[in-house]
C-alpha cells in the first residue's frame, strides 16, 4: 500500500471526534520491550557472547552451532562436508530464525512473512559461503560479499520476489548484530588505541564533506534543508544520517528519498571502486579498511567493500590480515563517524530553527535528541570487546586473541557467527535494492552530492594512506 493510500482515510475523517477506531501512532506505550533494532541487536549480540563465555568457562564451546563450510577442492568434498554437518546447519538456522524472528515480531513483523524470506536468505547464504570456500574462488574473483550483493540485486531487480518477503531482508538489523559480535573478536586495548585516531580522522572528513556538499548545493540554488539532508547523507552515515537530519530540520517529504537514492547509487559504486583502487595501490589491509571506513557512505556497503578487500590479503603485494580491513573499517565508520549523528541532528535543528526560513512547522529543540539518535549498537560493540578481553585475561593483540583455546573455543566461533550475520546483510542489501523504486534525483542534487563524494574519497585516501598510514598499517 502506498503512503498516500494509507493516509487517504484520514482526509475523510470529519474531525478528531470521529467514532472510527483510533490509528496507533505512538507504538511504545505500555511495553517495556525495546522498539528499535539497535537495542535488539545489542541484546541479541551480547546474549550470544554471554552464552559463549559461559560455555567457555565450563570448558565447553558454542562452536558446534557456529558451523561454516570447510575449504574444498572437489564438489564431492563439499557435499560430504554438508551431509556430515547437516544437523548443525539445521540447528543454526533454527537459532537465527528464533532470535531474529522473535525480535522482529516485537518490531511489528509477522512470523508468517519472516519465516519463508529468512529461509531463502539462509539457503542463499550457505550457497555463497560454500562458493567462497572453494579453493579456486579467488582465481575467478568470486568474493563472497560481492557475489551476495550481485545475487541479491539480480533477484530483486527481476521482480522474482513479492514485497512481503522484505520482512526477512533486514540489512541494518543483521549488520548491527554482526558488529556487536565483531566487538567480541577484537581486544579492547586495540579499540582504545585506534579509536581516538579514527575519531579525529573521521571528524575531519565528515566536516569537510558536509561543508562541500552543503555549499555546492546552496550555490546551485537548492533549498537549505535539502542541502543539509544531502550533506549528512554524504558525510556522516549515509541513509541513516539523511533521515535523521531530514527529520531534525523538517525537510520536505521528497528530500529524504533524493538523498537515499544518491547514497545507494554511490555506495554501490564505491563498493567496487575502493577495493579495486586499494589493490592497484597495494594498500595494506588495515590502511584500505581505514580508507573504506572514511569514504564509504553506509555501514553495510562499507563492510561489503572491507570484507572483499580483506579477502585479498596474502595476494601479491597486499600485506596485512583479512581482519585488519574489517577492524579498521569498523573503528573508522562506526566509532569515528556514526556516533556523531545525534550531534549533527541537534546542531542542524538549532540552525534550522533560528536561521533558516520558516516552513510553517516549528521544531522544539531538545538536547535529548543527541542520545535518542545515538546508534546504540556501538555500546554493544564496546561491551562485547571489553567482556572477551577480560575473559582472555587482558589479551592486548590479535596474536593473543588468535591462538590457543581462547581462539578455538570462544573467539573463532563468535567470528563465524559474525560472518553469517554479515552474509545475511550483504544478501539483503541486494534483495532490497530495487532501482526502479528509487526516487528521481535531478541534476543539481547529483552534482552537489557527487562533489562531496569526490572530496571525501580523495581526502580519505590522503589521511589513511599518507598522514596516518603508520597507524593503520600497524593495526
Amino acid at each position, binding site marked *: 500500500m502506498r*503512503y498516500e493510500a*494509507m493516509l487517504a482515510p*484520514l482526509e475523510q475523517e470529519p474531525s*478528531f471526534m*470521529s467514532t*472510527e477506531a*483510533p*490509528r*496507533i*501512532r*505512538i*507504538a*511504545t*506505550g505500555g511495553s517495556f*520491550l525495546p*522498539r*528499535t*533494532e*539497535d*537495542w535488539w541487536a545489542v541484546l541479541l549480540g551480547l546474549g550470544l557472547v554471554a552464552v559463549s563465555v559461559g560455555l567457555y568457562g565450563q570448558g565447553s564451546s558454542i562452536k558446534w552451532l557456529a558451523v561454516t563450510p570447510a575449504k574444498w577442492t572437489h564438489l564431492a568434498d563439499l557435499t560430504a562436508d554438508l551431509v556430515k554437518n547437516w544437523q548443525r546447519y539445521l540447528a543454526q538456522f533454527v537459532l537465527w530464525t528464533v532470535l531474529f524472528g522473535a525480535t522482529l515480531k516485537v*518490531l*511489528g513483523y509477522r512470523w508468517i512473512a519472516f519465516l519463508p524470506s529468512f529461509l531463502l536468505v539462509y539457503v542463499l547464504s550457505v550457497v555463497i559461503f560454500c562458493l567462497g570456500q572453494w579453493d579456486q574462488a579467488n582465481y575467478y574473483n568470486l568474493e563472497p560479499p560481492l557475489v551476495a550483493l550481485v545475487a541479491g540485486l539480480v533477484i530483486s531487480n527481476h521482480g522474482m520476489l513479492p514485497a512481503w518477503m*522484505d520482512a526477512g*531482508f533486514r*540489512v*541494518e*538489523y543483521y549488520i548491527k548484530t554482526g558488529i556487536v559480535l565483531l566487538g567480541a573478536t577484537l581486544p579492547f586495548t586495540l579499540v582504545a588505541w585506534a579509536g581516538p585516531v579514527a575519531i579525529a580522522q573521521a571528524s575531519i572528513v565528515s566536516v569537510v564533506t558536509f561543508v562541500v556538499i552543503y555549499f555546492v548545493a546552496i550555490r546551485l540554488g537548492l533549498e537549505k534543508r535539502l542541502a543539509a539532508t544531502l550533506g549528512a547523507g554524504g558525510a556522516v552515515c*549515509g*541513509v*541513516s544520517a539523511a*533521515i*535523521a537530519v*531530514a*527529520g*531534525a530540520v*523538517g*525537510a*520536505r*517529504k521528497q*528530500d*529524504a*528519498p533524493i538523498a*537515499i*537514492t544518491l*547514497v*545507494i547509487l554511490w555506495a554501490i559504486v564505491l563498493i567496487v571502486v575502493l577495493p579495486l583502487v586499494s589493490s592497484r595501490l597495494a594498500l595494506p589491509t588495515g590502511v584500505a579498511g581505514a580508507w573504506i571506513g572514511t569514504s564509504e557512505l553506509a555501514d553495510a*556497503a562499507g563492510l561489503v567493500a572491507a570484507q572483499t578487500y580483506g579477502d585479498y590479503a596474502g595476494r601479491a603485494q597486499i600485506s596485512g590480515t583479512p581482519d585488519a580491513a574489517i577492524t579498521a573499517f569498523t573503528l573508522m565508520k562506526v566509532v569515528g563517524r556514526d556516533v556523531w*549523528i*545525534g550531534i549533527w541532528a541537534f546542531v542542524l535543528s538549532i540552525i534550522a530553527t533560528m536561521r533558516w526560513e520558516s*516552513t*510553517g*512547522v*516549528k*521544531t*522544539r529543540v531538545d538536547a535529548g535528541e543527541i542520545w*535518542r539518535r*545515538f546508534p546504540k549498537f556501538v555500546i554493544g560493540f564496546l561491551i562485547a570487546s571489553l567482556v572477551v578481553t577480560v575473559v582472555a585475561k587482558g589479551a592486548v593483540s590479535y596474536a593473543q586473541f588468535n591462538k590457543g583455546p581462547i581462539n578455538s573455543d570462544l573467539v573463532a566461533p563468535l567470528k563465524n557467527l559474525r560472518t553469517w550475520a554479515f552474509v545475511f546483510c550483504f544478501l539483503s542489501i541486494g534483495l*532490497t*535494492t530495487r532501482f526502479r*523504486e528509487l526516487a528521481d534525483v535531478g541534476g543539481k542534487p547529483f552534482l552537489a552530492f557527487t562533489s562531496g563524494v569526490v572530496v571525501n574519497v580523495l581526502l580519505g585516501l590522503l589521511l589513511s594512506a599518507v598522514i596516518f598510514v603508520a597507524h593503520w598499517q600497524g593495526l
Partner: protein
Amino acid sequence: VKLVSGVLRGKRLAELDACGRCRFFENESRALELALPGLTSLSSADAAVRDRDGLCARHERLVTQRSYCREFEPAADAARPLTPRR
C-alpha cells in the same frame, strides 16, 4: 494547586500540540519505509537514529514528534503521552 500541578505537568502541557498527537502525523515504521523508497536498502525505519520522527501529511515534511504548527488537529489517540523511543 493549579499552579503546582501546572508546573509539574508543564512539559506535557507545552507539548499538547505536538506533531506526535496530530492526525496528520504518521511515524509507524512500516508506513515510513513505504513512503521513503530505498530506506531499507542501507538503513531502516526501526533504527535509533530516526528517533520518533514521522511524516506530516499537511505540510508534506519529515518532522520530529515534538514539532508543532498552527494547523494542528488532534488525533483520536492524542491524549496518549509522547513516550521516549527505546
